[in-house]
């Protein structure tokens, strides 16, 4: 720890390996733009989520919100049914996907040890992607939402996202194909799966549900919708996040992956079982019983890849933290938590694949708990960890304050933990009320039960939003200082880097380990 402290600040953050330094330099602008825009969408999405959540219960607990409620009652733009999907879409497409795409391209270039191919195309793609998200969200607010979960973006935004995705994916795959011989890594497989899965999901979902629904397709729309939503989490976000984790955890902790020989098994079993989690939204509904039963059995086997992935990554990460004391710097604690949340998400999916549990929780807040675990629990922590690692290397500039990192860490951690506990437990209570075999119990009874949990979850999501806001401000501060330094002279740059900003915890994150 102490040995690594003295060097990075003096040398800067650029990788000591000239090949990797060249790779990082080649992706600097497109990846920075994608990460910054992702953080922007995170702030927008989190704000919308707090707002939507506060509309889901009477506002007595927050009298200050009365004004917002009046607004949502009288102005169609701010009604719950538009703000909620806008919030989730901003988080999934704006925050998670934008950051995921940027980081995937960076990682494919880095693991192949070649500069990114077609950086201009990549940059265009990132800009168009953001444009697509912005237009899509505007469309939802203006009443063009399609009303299909996670596919709410109107067709005119979908085409832009499609084009943007194609540009970014072409760039990523070309970079991968041009890799140095022998530069193969499990992470590449995870990232490629995500890059293949998204176009299939997005095309089939948008075409068959929104732009050209088959006439008389009836409940097939429900099946397609479930397949899309769960596919997006398990075949798009999960592989992107796991690709980053399988690369960054061994690298930052300077450990080999524990039980590494089981990693390919985890990979293939995940691909086969994970999409079947779609039936969690179908149990008891007007669908073929054999599809649901098959799906419950296959998604019930999800514990195999989840356990193997946990077994691969958690001990590796913990060994790294132990070896480097002080929790191994800034990056590792976030990545460790990301894996822990991944396992937690796996457990919640596992609960839903038990038929009786699913019957109880099917239409309750528990589904929200599962969704927030994917977005805020698992994926956000992957991106936070990755950004603490990569942004200093792209800018050759350190994070400003170890204190802010710590505040971000704890408010995000406790915020999301509390949200999950509140919404998960609330879901169980709501389920028991809705499933009471007494016809005197009505939806009003269930509303009375859920109110307190919704109020609590609004408060906890606010805590998450404080953490996210601090992260965004910290990033802004870092960029501002970096700009100041660029405008002035390089002499000052090294001075600022050596100033007390560069706290020990922050410095250790920059430790460069050969691949």
């Amino acid at each position, binding site marked *: 720890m102490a040995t690594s402290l003295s060097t990075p600040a003096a040398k800067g953050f650029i990788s000591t390996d000239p090949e990797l330094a060249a790779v990082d330099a080649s992706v600097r602008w497109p990846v920075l733009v994608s990460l910054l825009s992702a953080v922007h969408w995170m702030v927008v999405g989190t704000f919308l989520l707090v707002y939507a959540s506060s509309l*889901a219960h009477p506002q007595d607990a927050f009298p200050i919100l009365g004004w917002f409620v009046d607004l*949502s*009652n*009288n*102005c169609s733009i701010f*009604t*719950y*049914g*538009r703000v*909620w*999907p806008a919030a989730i879409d901003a988080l999934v497409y704006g925050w998670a996907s934008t950051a995921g795409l940027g980081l995937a391209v960076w990682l494919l270039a880095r693991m192949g040890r070649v500069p990114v191919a077609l950086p201009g195309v990549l940059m265009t793609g990132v800009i168009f992607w953001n444009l697509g998200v912005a237009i899509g969200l505007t469309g939802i607010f203006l*009443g063009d*939402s*399609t*009303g299909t979960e996670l596919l709410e973006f109107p067709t005119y935004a979908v085409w832009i996202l499609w084009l943007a995705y194609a540009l970014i994916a072409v760039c990523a795959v070309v970079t991968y194909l041009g890799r140095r011989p022998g530069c*193969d890594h*499990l992470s590449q*497989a995870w990232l*490629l*799966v995500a890059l*293949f899965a998204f176009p299939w999901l997005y095309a089939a979902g948008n075409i068959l549900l929104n732009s050209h*629904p*088959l006439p008389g397709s*009836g*409940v097939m*729309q*429900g*099946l397609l919708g*479930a*397949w899309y939503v769960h596919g997006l989490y398990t075949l798009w976000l999960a592989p992107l996040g796991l690709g980053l984790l399988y690369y960054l955890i061994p690298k930052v902790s300077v450990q080999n*992956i524990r039980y590494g*020989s089981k990693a390919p098994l985890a*990979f*293939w079993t995940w*691909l086969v079982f994970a999409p*079947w989690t779609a*039936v969690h*939204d179908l*149990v008891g*509904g*007007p*669908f*073929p019983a054999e*599809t649901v039963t*098959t799906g419950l059995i296959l998604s019930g086997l999800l514990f195999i890849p989840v356990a193997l992935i946990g077994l691969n990554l958690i001990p590796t990460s913990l060994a790294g933290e132990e070896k480097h004391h002080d929790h191994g710097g800034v990056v590792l604690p976030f990545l460790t938590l990301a894996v822990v949340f991944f396992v937690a998400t796996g457990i919640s999916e596992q609960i839903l694949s038990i*038929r009786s549990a699913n*019957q109880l929780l099917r*239409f*309750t*807040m528990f589904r929200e708990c599962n969704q927030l675990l994917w977005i805020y629990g698992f994926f956000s922590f992957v991106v936070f960890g990755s950004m603490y690692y990569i942004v200093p290397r792209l800018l050759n500039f350190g994070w400003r304050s170890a204190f802010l990192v710590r505040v971000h860490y704890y408010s995000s951690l406790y915020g999301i933990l509390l949200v999950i506990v509140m919404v998960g437990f609330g879901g169980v209570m709501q389920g028991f009320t*809705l499933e*009471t*075999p007494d*016809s005197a*119990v*009505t*939806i*009003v009874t269930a*509303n009375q039960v*859920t109110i307190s949990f919704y109020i609590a979850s609004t408060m906890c999501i606010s805590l998450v939003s404080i953490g996210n806001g601090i992260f965004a401000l910290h990033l802004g501060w870092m960029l501002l200082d970096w700009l100041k330094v660029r405008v002035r002279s390089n002499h000052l740059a090294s001075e600022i880097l050596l100033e007390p900003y560069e706290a020990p915890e922050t410095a250790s994150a920059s430790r460069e380990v050969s691949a």
Partner: protein
Amino acid sequence: MNLVPDFRTFFLFVLGSFAFAWFGLIVLPWMELGHLAPIKDEGSNDILPWDTANTAHQGEHVYAANGCAYCHTQQVRPTTSGADITRGWGSAKDDDGKDVTRRTYPRDYIWQHQVFLGNSRNGADLTNVAARFPDAAALYRYLYDPYVLNGHSSMPEYRFLFITRKISGLPSDDAVLLTGPDAPPAGYEVVPTAEAKSLVAYLLSLKKGYHLPDENGPVAATPAKS
């Protein structure tokens, strides 16, 4: 851990795993559900399920745009897998005023352009909402202010679907009957917009007051053209 020895082989394996889920979740169910035909009722000569009017289809867009499906489901599970029937969500009256209480079947949805099965029950199930709200006036009142009927409702007020305007000449036939604090000032009336009218037409079409032969077991597939 070289998982990608040969790009093409890897790609084929990944494609295979995607296709496995696609086949099981989409293709096989489509073969069973994709060509469900309406059925002619022997006794009444009704075509089942009941047809949906055009204004109701326009209402589907309003239902989608304002995100009703995020809190309301439109599916009734059988008694073996949920208490939906006990909650009264499966009950409607048929043309003769007799009670029909049952789960929903895939055939119930074949006329709807967009199907809103829903995944959350913050609100009540709407499969038979028309059976609980007898007329448009009651639904307009509920959309304007849910708290009047249900003090614990978490449903937003949809006042933007209505216009408060000065009465010129005779009051409108459509004017919403509002009392108490919601009542418009004297000389004014609250009328539904075209959006509200199509939404209410859609909601009033949601009623399953008929029996399907599916209730007695699987129905032999009928050719789509019949």
